């Protein structure tokens, strides 16, 4: 069996385990390539039936317009339910406070909106597109990752996960984060997208746009970035290698217009995918700390 067939079969198996083990699962959809790949795998797992879960998008309000358009088009084609949790609602309700200053981002605020959305709908499992190759704390996380009633991950108390057996039993109030593409690398995802001809938002491919340079990274010029006179806007040929919201996702200069170019670019790259994520640069254990707090 080719390794992509193996990874695909494993992910489909995991998605079906979620369907079989949980009362009210959800698929967390960010509009990025990993969650788009998950949706494609869900079609393979459950068609011609309906998905046994809705798609859930936690929207910071600072997303790329291209991502939102793509999301709405995809949902319309699928005929599946979409639930959107708005970070703006959490801010309006006084549950979180917007960061101030130039590097303000709503990325950390998402955790509260996510946990509220989980509680409101009573989700007992949330499927996510995180991969173990992304980050060293993620390399330690289980495929079925149990979170306590506060949404917290406890890396020291993880359940042993053997063979193809996933123990999703939880008490009320707890929930499980499930990562069907844990064993995929960035390159695997791109090779799979090419093989399966999966449609992606245009910002993954090279295009020209206004950017500014912040902390050595190219950021899309947008009102949310609290720009001032020190920010010099340049018109550059760029693409996005990972897609979070506009405040935490940096662009890379690129001439990759087609998927073959992207795959070649990643092969040659000397910087990891999350190197373009401002949220990971906070500290050595930034991801571990956020996961302990309830992050994806």
């Amino acid at each position: 069996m080719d390794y992509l067939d193996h990874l695909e079969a494993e992910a489909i198996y995991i998605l079906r385990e979620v369907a079989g083990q949980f009362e009210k699962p959800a698929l967390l959809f960010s509009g990025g390539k990993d969650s788009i790949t998950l949706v494609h795998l869900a079609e393979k797992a459950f068609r011609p039936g309906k998905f046994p879960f809705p798609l859930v998008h936690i929207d910071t309000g600072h997303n790329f317009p291209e991502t939102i358009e793509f999301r709405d088009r995809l949902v319309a084609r699928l005929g599946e339910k979409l639930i959107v949790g708005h970070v703006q609602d959490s801010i309006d309700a006084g549950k979180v406070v917007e960061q101030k200053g130039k590097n303000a981002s709503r990325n950390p605020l998402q955790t509260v909106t996510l946990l509220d959305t989980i509680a409101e709908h009573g989700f007992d499992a949330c499927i996510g597109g995180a991969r173990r190759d992304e980050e060293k704390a993620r390399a330690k996380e289980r495929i079925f990752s149990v979170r306590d009633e506060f949404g917290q991950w406890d890396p020291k108390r993880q359940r042993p996960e053997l063979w193809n057996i996933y123990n999703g039993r939880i008490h009320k109030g707890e929930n499980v984060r499930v990562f069907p593409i844990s064993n995929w690398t960035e390159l695997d995802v791109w090779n799979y997208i090419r093989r399966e001809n999966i449609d992606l938002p245009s910002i993954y491919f090279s295009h020209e746009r206004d950017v500014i340079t912040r902390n050595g990274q190219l950021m899309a010029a947008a009102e949310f970035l609290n720009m001032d006179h020190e920010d010099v806007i340049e018109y550059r040929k760029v693409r996005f290698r990972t897609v979070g919201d506009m405040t935490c996702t940096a662009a890379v200069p690129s001439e990759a217009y087609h998927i073959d170019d992207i795959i070649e670019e990643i092969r040659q790259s000397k910087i990891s995918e999350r190197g373009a994520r401002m949220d990971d640069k906070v500290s050595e254990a930034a991801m571990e700390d956020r996961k302990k707090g309830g992050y994806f």
Partner: protein
Amino acid sequence: MDLLKFITAGSVDDGKSTLIGRLLYDTNSVLDDQLEAIQRANRKNNDGTLDLAILTDGLKAEREQGITIDVAYKYFQTEKRKFIIADAPGHIQYTRNMVTGASNSDLAIILIDARKGVIEQTRRHSFIVSLLGIPNVLVCVNKMDMVDYDQAVFDKIKSDYERLVLNLRIKQVDYVPVSALKGDNIASKSTNTSWYSGKSLLDFLETVEVNHTTANKQARFPVQWVIRPQSEELPDYRGYAGRVVGGTFAVGDRVVALPSEVSSTITRIELAANDLDVASDGASVIIHLADDIDISRGDMLVKQDEQPSVSKQFEAEICWMDSKPLDINQFYLIQQHGKTAKVKIQDIIYRVNIETLEQSAAVDLGLNDIGKIQFKSADSLAFDSYVANKTNGGAILIDLRNNLTVAALMITESLD
């Protein structure tokens, strides 16, 4: 391109993390920003070279203590193969983590410190590898630089290890002398060991033939989910979704649903709207049958002439994984694939001392204990022996009170 999953067993003292770091580094799998992070953390070896161990120790507690606690999965690929490393801790108090990592590996790298030779830890790791049914072992005799690359040291360790595996179920053992720190025989052959005629570690990993084919396994298809759209276009569609865990199924095969033992014929096999003639081991597919029979999640389709043991009583090898010991007066839940049932442990047949491999009587089993038990299930279960089919012979026990996974079971035989 195919995939090789392997586990590395050994402790930090043996240079395990350094070995993995070296493999990643020498295959250009470490990127600039990750190297920068190592430099930022300012971890250096005594000779001033970068401490590659930090690449694998992902948790704060691990970096603080300088030990591996939990299994970490690492990924790299070369022109020839794609690899998944399960980097497991070597200390005895983390035996359960090694068992976890070993459950999904096709090959094990056992690290031996050239200065120390075969020690108790080597025996323990090899026993776990054998217990979990990993067919191939590669013994890496590490720190050869510390013994002046002496062939006699290597040969002695090799003959000691050959004796050690005599009583184990390991099918194939190979040996390579390395220095993870200096890079000898990792990505390429070293001139320091001119007496060694074998392959470098990477060359070996790229070319080793691993016995994870299942030509001789019987066909098993645990049903995970029944697809019934009940829509206007597909009012009568009924497909059984699941993953083949051994053997192959073809359209036209006579099959039996277990535990009901009702038989039917496969009329169609689908993978994402494409019809297949055959579904082979590992494939996630949808199977259609000629007859409308009652099959639901937890049931298993098997070929009529290749049936597993269907029983309520089994014997199994066990690794206890919870800090609360096994309580023989309590019910547990067994989970095999997506099937669960209440079980009672009827007898602890023995406990193994995993350093001497001696068996002795036991009244309970504690954290990291390995032994053999007999259990009785409330429902009929369809198991193969673990030796015949890992995926259909393995199961876990769950504590009903706190839902924790408390044990790994490797079925040895049915008792009915």
